[in-house]
């Protein structure tokens, strides 16, 4: 049936992903070798005009070290994820739901059970990111038995029941389509691809006594080459997750039979400005897990892990819609716990790309 078809499709995508990853690693190895050879050559050229050849095993060592970094980073991160969805969610600062005593958490737990019936899946573990006051959520896990859905405290406090239902339905779609599994694989790859860049950065950065050594030049070369891996990692993330966000949005509307659920969530996020500090709490290799991306100043659109909020809202409603204030229409509007959120002005001042949040 449909669920098996989409899981087969997801497996096919995993193969494509592994291929793209292998290709990127090969390119990265080439780039590191070329950059180091260039710097070495320039260095020798300035020092002794006679010119000296490259040291023995130059390319073998460069290639070996690069592979060690990338594959080692990938392996390390992946083995850290072996703990499964709950372990990863804990790393991201989520804790298990405590439904007794707290009305909002009771409601969230109930909604997760409702959407499990609507989607025909087992109820996943519900978790809360208690220290996050923005509106966001993610789903993760290797498979249906391991699945986790986590929402921020802000989402619990500022969303109506209908909106929270839309948000949970969106995350259920990610579990059902096998996106969460794909994303678990991606995290390790992106981490590995960023390793070379970070290593170069370490060497380039001046040491404690603020001296810049000759080695720094080598660091700069490694950084430049490693940047390729960084960009490729993020491009991979973006390519995988962007289309899936539209699908998940459509599923959320289908399952809840309401545009105003998820639509309201996106419009509320549009109406808030996020605190830059809070956005940094989620590491960049995990960006693509979230309901809305928290990375603002992006270089280019094709690096975005999520389509813009405006695009998503337009697809849900069929026309552009303005932002919503944070009040809960069920008469539950509460004072904002922190001043991270300014109440949305009637016409919020927004940059060309909208708010910092880009619902993914």
């Amino acid at each position, binding site marked *: 049936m449909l669920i098996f078809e989409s899981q087969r499709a997801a497996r096919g995508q995993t193969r494509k992903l592994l291929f793209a990853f292998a290709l990127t690693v090969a390119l990265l190895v080439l780039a590191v070798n070329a950059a180091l050879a260039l710097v070495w050559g320039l260095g020798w050229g300035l020092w002794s005009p006679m010119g000296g050849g490259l040291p023995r095993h130059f390319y073998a060592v460069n290639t070996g070290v690069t592979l060690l970094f990338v594959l080692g980073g990938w392996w390390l991160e992946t083995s850290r994820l072996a703990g499964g969805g709950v372990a990863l969610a804990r790393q991201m600062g989520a804790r298990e739901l405590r439904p007794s005593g707290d009305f909002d958490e009771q409601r969230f737990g109930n909604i997760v*059970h*409702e959407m499990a*019936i*609507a989607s*025909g899946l087992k109820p996943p573990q519900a978790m809360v990111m208690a220290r996050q006051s923005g509106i966001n959520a993610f789903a993760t896990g290797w498979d249906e038995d391991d699945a986790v859905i986590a929402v921020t405290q802000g989402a619990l406090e500022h969303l109506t029941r209908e909106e929270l239902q839309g948000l949970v339905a969106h995350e259920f779609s990610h579990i059902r389509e096998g996106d969460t599994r794909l994303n678990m694989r991606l995290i390790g790859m992106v981490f590995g691809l960023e390793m070379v860049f970070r290593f170069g950065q370490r060497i380039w950065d001046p040491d404690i006594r603020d001296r810049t050594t000759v080695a720094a030049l080598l660091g700069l070369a490694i950084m430049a080459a490693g940047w390729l891996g960084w960009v490729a990692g993020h491009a991979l993330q973006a390519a995988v997750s962007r289309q899936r966000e539209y699908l998940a949005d459509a599923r959320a509307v289908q399952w809840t039979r309401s545009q105003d659920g998820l639509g309201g969530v996106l419009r509320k996020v549009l109406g808030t400005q996020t605190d830059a500090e809070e956005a940094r709490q989620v590491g960049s290799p995990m960006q693509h897990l979230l309901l809305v991306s928290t990375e603002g100043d992006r270089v280019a659109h094709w690096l975005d892990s999520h389509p813009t909020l405006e695009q998503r809202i337009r697809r849900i409603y069929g026309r552009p819609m303005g932002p919503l204030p944070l009040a809960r229409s069920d008469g539950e509007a509460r004072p904002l716990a922190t001043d991270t959120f300014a109440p949305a002005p009637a016409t919020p001042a927004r940059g060309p790309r909208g708010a910092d949040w880009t619902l993914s």
Partner: protein
Amino acid sequence: MGAMTWVLLAVGLLAVFWAVGAYNRLVRLKNAIANAFGQIDVQLKRRYDLIPNLVEVARKYLAHEAQTLEAVIAARNQARSAEQTAAGSPLNAGALGALAGAEQMLGGALGRLFAVAEAYPDLKADQTMRELSEELSSTENRIGFARQAYNDHVLEFNDAAAQFPTLIVARLFNFQTQAMLESTTSEAERAPVKVTF
């Protein structure tokens, strides 16, 4: 034996294999309907268990509305006995119809209770009442989604049993098409009872 006999034998065997496969598929689909009814049943029971608690909490504040409260309890008891009959024979159209009628009455009685409760702010502010109402809303939603799933399974079975050539097997073994749950045929009825607290 001639080659002709062998061919006929092979064709006959193939037909038998196919018929066994088609029969098994119909049985599987029919069992899925019974299972889907079980899902609704679980939620209905959950609701019947919640309602008396809700009425007890409301009684403290609604001393003058005894009639409304009693109506809810009576409707709940009636729905519960209809549910027990239907659970005994899940694919019986008559029992399902009676259950649908009783459920509609219960929905109406609950709606009146919540309308009355609007005038009692103390009741609306009661912590236990809020939690019970949330449980009830959630149960209403679950029933709605489970009904949807039930109808999807009925549709799948009916399609399979009505299509040629499976139709032959269905007729032969007297598989009857199943009725959908009627109260989900119109958009207005599909909406859950509005619980406003």
